[in-house]
């Protein structure tokens, strides 16, 4: 297991480097610069001096070299806009984003997986049809629209929850954004779980277990559930990573102070160090979750060996 972990960690290095290179090159060629957005009427000489101060007068390859060298020491640079260290800016935003993503996934897992199981165990029933209608609707709904709908219903009409903001970071502020973000993975998990369970239910080893006289509860618990979990876990892992990206819309809508809104603001303002830092955090999170899922495969199904 240890060698597997080391191998997987080493495999992430080229991925991270590729992302760093891609983002750097992309923001070096897109039109628009922080210097021109700073002031309406800067003297060209002032602009030149400012470019020099920010290092933007250097060729791209030299800037990239300097950036990677700093990155190796854990320094993400300073924001062009606020002049704060990017690590400080990100640190302020990480916890709200993690809160949102974990709450969304908790909602998705707690609702989606049981829904898929129930649907698969009663295929063609009313429960199955209703579950799948719910799942398809969840996948089809635009997050922005769904968020507004939830705001309208639970804040304006029922008065149960605040419609926006972070407040003290408590649960009542978290529920609406988390549900908005969690509906889509919930729907996907329900569909995946149903498909996985249905497939396993017709597998030879399940039929064998039944023919041996094993009760249906034990069949589901020991054979179906365990085998389905591998596929469910894969979906969960991918969804965790995807939520980091999808959180942008939800954070903006609910004035949630996460990394997603930092990323969008930084892109619009051409604050390159903040963009690079934010994307790097998203990528590292995605890789970490996938690594965790790979490890969990082995725990759930001991037949999967990594060594």
């Amino acid at each position: 297991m240890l060698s597997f972990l080391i191998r997987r960690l080493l495999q992430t290095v080229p991925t991270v480097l590729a992302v760093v290179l891609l983002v750097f090159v992309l923001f070096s060629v897109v039109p628009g610069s922080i210097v021109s957005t700073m002031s309406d009427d800067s003297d060209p000489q002032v602009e030149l001096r400012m470019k020099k101060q920010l290092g933007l007068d250097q060729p791209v390859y030299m800037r990239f070299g300097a950036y990677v060298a700093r990155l190796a020491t854990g320094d993400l640079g300073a924001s062009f806009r606020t002049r704060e260290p990017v690590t400080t800016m990100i640190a302020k935003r990480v916890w709200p984003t993690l809160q949102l993503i974990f709450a969304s996934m908790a909602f998705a897992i707690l609702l989606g997986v049981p829904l898929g199981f129930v649907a698969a165990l009663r295929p063609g029933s009313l429960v199955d049809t209703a579950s799948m209608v719910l799942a398809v609707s969840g996948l089809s709904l635009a997050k922005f629209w769904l968020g507004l709908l939830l705001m309208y219903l639970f804040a304006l009409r029922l008065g149960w929850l605040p419609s926006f903001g972070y407040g003290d970071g408590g649960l009542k502020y978290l529920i609406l954004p988390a549900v908005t973000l969690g509906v889509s993975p919930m729907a996907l998990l329900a569909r995946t779980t149903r498909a996985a369970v249905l497939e396993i239910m017709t597998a030879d080893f399940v039929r064998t277990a039944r023919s041996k006289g094993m009760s249906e509860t034990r069949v589901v618990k020991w054979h179906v559930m365990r085998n389905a979990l591998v596929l469910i876990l894969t979906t969960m892992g991918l969804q965790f990573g995807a939520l980091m990206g999808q959180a942008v819309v939800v954070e903006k809508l609910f004035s949630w102070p996460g990394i997603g809104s930092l990323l969008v603001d930084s892109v619009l303002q051409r604050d390159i160090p903040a963009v690079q830092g934010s994307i790097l955090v998203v990528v590292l999170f995605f890789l970490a979750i996938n690594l965790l899922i790979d490890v969990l495969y082995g725990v759930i199904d001991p037949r999967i060996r990594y060594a």
Partner: protein
Amino acid sequence: MFRTIAIVAGLGLALAATAEAQTPRKGGTIRMTAPYGSSFTSLDIHTTQRAQDEIYAKALHRSLYIWNSAEGKPVLELAKDDVVSGGGLVHTFKLRDDAYFHNGRKMTADDVIWSYNRIMDGTKAYPGARYVRVIEGASAVEKGQAKEISGLKKIDDFTIEMKLTEKVDPGFYFFTALTSIYPADEAAKESFIQKPIGLGPFKFVEHVPGSRIVLERWDRFYKPGKPYADKVIVSVMGEAAARDVAFRNKEIDTSVLGPAQYVAYQSDAALKGTIVEVAEVFTRYMGMNTSFKPFADKRVRQAINYAIDTDLIINKLVKGKAYRATSWLPLTSPLYDKTMKPYAYDPAKAKQLLTEAGYPGGFEFEWTTSQNESWGLPIVSAVIPMLDKVGIKAKVKQVETAVLAEVVRSGDYQAFIYSQQTGPDPQAALKCFHSATPQSACNYMNFKNADFDKLMDEAGQADDVAKRGQLLQKANALLYDEAPVWFFNYNKAVMAVQPWLKGVQLNATELTHQNVEDLWVDETSPAK
């Protein structure tokens, strides 16, 4: 008799109730919104020129002058008196001796000088430099040729002498938060941008990036009895629909309305009374590059103005949330000429002008635009068929707003659509068209006209305010005739304000920028 007594008593009660209602209440929380898209850029207000950031800065900081919405002009704020000498170029300010920073230290002349010198640091390109540059010697500091602004002199702790490079009203240059006065000893510290200190009526408590800024009452504020409220919360809310729900749910006290919401609120009996609106000092227009051959001819530029049914666009597309532009200076400018009439919608006249200019079959041009709903792609899309009717074909080039700003300043366009601040100082607004003004500054159309220059130069030299005004009005009329732009509209800013929030000022420079010390909430506010 009884009826008369009843009416008098009723009137008395009504007047008493009104008087009571108008007596500012102490305490409570004001919940404002920052509606312009993204998070606050920085807690160092010198570094950011975004309207979004000035919303909180109006509570936290103070500048030498402040905008007085009732009078429609800047008035002294951190100074009690301004004595003008030296042929109108030297201003001697007697500073307040009762203004305390939020760390408890009294403001002195050193803080003013330090702040203006900081803004002129050319390596940082502080946006406020465009204003401070009017002080003699400021440009030398910006270019790194001097360490301190030579035109600023400390006479004593509370007296400062400022020598200007031209005869202008310094109030127009030193009223925005971009020229806020910082505490010299604290602002140089790294910690300042995490916990800013100012002279404003509210002191900093908390910033949740991307979500809100919280400020609380500063008890040593220099205006007796003010501020009224205990706390101000400014929430970042870029999404109009989310703001709408929050406003209806009474979670916020103010909400800027876009065209669609403006119509919805007007037609809703419960919300109609919450609307406040003002003509802001912004002119929306299509700029034409005179180095592109067809646009070099005045008749072509006029033809464009005649070819577009501007009123139709304002009414149908902008939903009436704008005022028709008649020339460059906006409706709320002190020099706005009410006698001027906008270009009529007259396609036949447009065709005739095009023929006279040598383009009977029209021509084709590229129109650079952002996606802005009020002065971007939707407007361009509506105009294209109108131009097509007179033979002019427009090809759209869509860019981001940040890129558009760069395009406009570099002159790399044939035509563009934009919203430009055209006030409150009419002289500064018109000076953008002076041939000596670089394109990268604000002469985006690279306009050059000897008659216009002459009028502006004479206005700059005029000591008599009335004469200066007349000359500037003539310059504005000349622009109308020269038509370097399609005069589209002047922005109508619209904000919904909860009935319990009182003292809202109709600020023509930016409606969301409120002098927060004058705001108060009555006891019906749900926020405690």
